[in-house]
């Protein structure tokens, strides 16, 4: 059929500044809450909260939960839940620990700290996580067992598979290259961090520019140029500011001395070196970018959100929702394994209780980040910001000296309050 008329694109007037910037008000609210939180803790702790050192630690502590939270967004968006992520992390961590301390050195006879150890260990771990996730997804999608039950079972099973694999022992120390994924043991140093920051800034600006060009090419409304410029400045400032802060945290002198001694050198007097970007944070950033692209720009992501919005409609549109469930849980399993790499490398060993209660932190991060348990809504950046807010709250309270039971009471209360605010907000803007 021929199409003659095209829909006229009418510019809308009377828009406020947020609409002109096309910013997500919800995101702004979260960022606002986060900033207030940080400033508040900073005042109470006499400026100890917002030091490069604390920000660095906060960042590397957040990574593991944040990686899993980005996968949990997909799970919750498709109206499922995964209660087994902490246990799955433990199993992956146990498998990787055994691979690098038993399998590679003794079975393959390559000894400790062989250059290929970390590759084998990480590879085995990621495959394990993905397969277990796919198995969960198959039970949920094809056998139609509710996700709550499958992953509740998985919670018990995988926690204890990990125990069985390691005889309940703490396995360590881990491979030295492997431990570079943990944070403090693997950073890029200042100059490399700056270069990466600059590259990221340029890339971000290109993305903004291309988005505008694509809209103009189709004669869609675009935001005013001044708004684009402000967005560009904010984004560049955020990236470079983040790099600057992490670079400003100097490696402690004692530690630097040991690093030189390990190489057989003597440390020059008065030398200081900044940590720069931790590798684990780069992994998180990569995960965030890939998951966001998947969510927004791929068919898989479109189907995940469509299924969450209306499973029947998705099915009637020819989407294989069963296979989709398998894919979503495979992604979750893969990300659990990736988190296991970061978590065990940060601790420098595999311990029996690794990842305990992580499932609740991960779900809380996703939900605080605006993922609706009714399905269909959620963002990756929201979940990561949610994880950061939770971690800040926890470590801020520890710094202030709040008793441990009160810390958890506050975190629990904040979770419920955040969801309530979200419900009120959604009602106000009329979204379901």
């Amino acid at each position, binding site marked *: 059929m021929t*199409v003659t*008329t095209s829909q006229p694109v009418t510019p809308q007037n009377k828009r406020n500044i947020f609409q002109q910037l096309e910013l997500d008000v919800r995101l702004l609210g979260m960022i606002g809450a986060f900033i207030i939180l940080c400033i508040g803790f900073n005042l109470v702790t006499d400026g100890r909260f917002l030091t490069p050192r604390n920000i660095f630690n906060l960042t590397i502590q957040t990574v593991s939960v944040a990686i899993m939270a980005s996968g949990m967004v997909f799970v919750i968006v498709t109206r499922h839940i995964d209660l087994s992520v902490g246990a799955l992390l433990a199993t992956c961590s146990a498998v990787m620990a055994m691979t690098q301390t038993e399998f590679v050195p003794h079975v393959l006879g390559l000894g400790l700290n062989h250059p290929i150890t970390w590759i084998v260990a990480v590879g085995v771990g990621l495959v394990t996580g993905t397969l277990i996730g796919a198995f969960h997804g198959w039970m949920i999608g094809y056998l139609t067992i509710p996700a709550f039950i499958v992953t509740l079972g998985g919670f018990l099973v995988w926690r204890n598979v990990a125990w069985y694999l390691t005889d309940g022992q703490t396995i360590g120390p881990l491979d030295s290259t492997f431990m570079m994924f943990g944070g403090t043991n693997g950073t890029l140093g200042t100059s490399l961090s700056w270069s990466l920051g600059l590259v990221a800034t340029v890339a971000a600006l290109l993305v903004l520019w291309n988005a505008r060009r694509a809209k103009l090419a189709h004669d869609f409304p675009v935001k005013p140029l001044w708004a684009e410029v402000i967005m560009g400045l904010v984004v560049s400032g955020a990236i470079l500011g983040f790099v600057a802060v992490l670079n400003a945290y100097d490696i402690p002198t004692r530690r630097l001395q040991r690093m030189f001694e390990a190489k057989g050198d003597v440390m020059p007097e008065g030398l200081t070196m900044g940590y720069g970007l931790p590798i684990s944070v780069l992994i998180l950033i990569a995960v965030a970018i890939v998951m966001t692209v998947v969510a927004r*720009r791929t068919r898989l992501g479109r189907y995940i959100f469509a299924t*969450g*919005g209306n499973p029947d*409609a998705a099915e009637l549109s020819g989407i294989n929702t069963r296979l989709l469930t398998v894919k979503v849980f495979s992604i979750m399993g893969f990300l659990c394994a990736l988190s296991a790499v970061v978590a065990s490398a940060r601790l420098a060993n595999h311990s029996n209780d690794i990842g305990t209660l992580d499932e609740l932190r991960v779900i809380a991060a996703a939900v605080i980040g605006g993922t609706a348990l009714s399905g269909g809504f959620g963002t990756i950046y929201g979940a990561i910001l949610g994880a950061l807010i939770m971690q800040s709250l926890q470590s801020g309270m520890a710094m202030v000296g709040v008793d441990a039971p009160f810390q958890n009471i506050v975190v629990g209360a904040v979770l419920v309050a955040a969801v309530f605010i979200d419900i009120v907000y959604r009602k106000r803007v009329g979204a379901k």
Partner: protein
Amino acid sequence: MTTPKELRAQGATPMVAMDDISVSFGGIKAVDQVSVDLHPGEVVGLLGHNGAGKSTLIKVLSGAYQMDSGEIRINGDKVEITNPRDARSHNIETIYQTLALADNLDAASNLFLGREIVTSTGLVNDAAMEAECRKIMGRLNPNFRKFNEPVSALSGGQRQSVAIARAVYFNARILIMDEPTAALGPHETQMVAELIQQLKAQGIGIFLIDHDVHAVMELCDRASVMKNGQLVGTVDIEDVTDDDLLSMIILGKKPGEAAA
């Protein structure tokens, strides 16, 4: 152009023939050996009470349900339709009573759901889809403006036009409309009626499921009436009155027959 009636008189092969279709759910025969057919440019109304089996019959054609026995032929060739993708590949499009829209996505995403336009790198091309969506909506519903909002923010008529756009955009040859005007006001109902005339003129065959006998009298060429899963009969609209149709629906008897 030959009218559908002439085509039938000539004994032309129908574009869709559903023969002896049976579907049962847990021992209950929802559809019992029903046969219907459809010619190009023809509108066939499917009438019957709630639970008469109209929607079940038509969901077999759209791939949502599996039949237990029977045969579907498209232009004379036997086809297997086991899922909605199969139906779409035969250019069968369906507008469901529930509209089957993902409420959290915008109009363009719903229009192209399952058939996204992708860029050379395999990523979905939202800009291109929105442009296409604006084109077709400009034709179907020129007042439609909410392209960047989730369809949950749309009115009943606007949602309906998204569902209709999805069915007609992809060059449907066979269109199934399950109570397309159920949620609409008089003005929008008129819009759908005009659209049906327009699609008919393009040679598209339409199965129209409706409760409203008057709408069927106005829009359809033939009507097939179902009761308790069985076909009461198929009649030419020209040969019957409203009352004839009503007695077929309520009493299950064809015009001219004595009440059963």
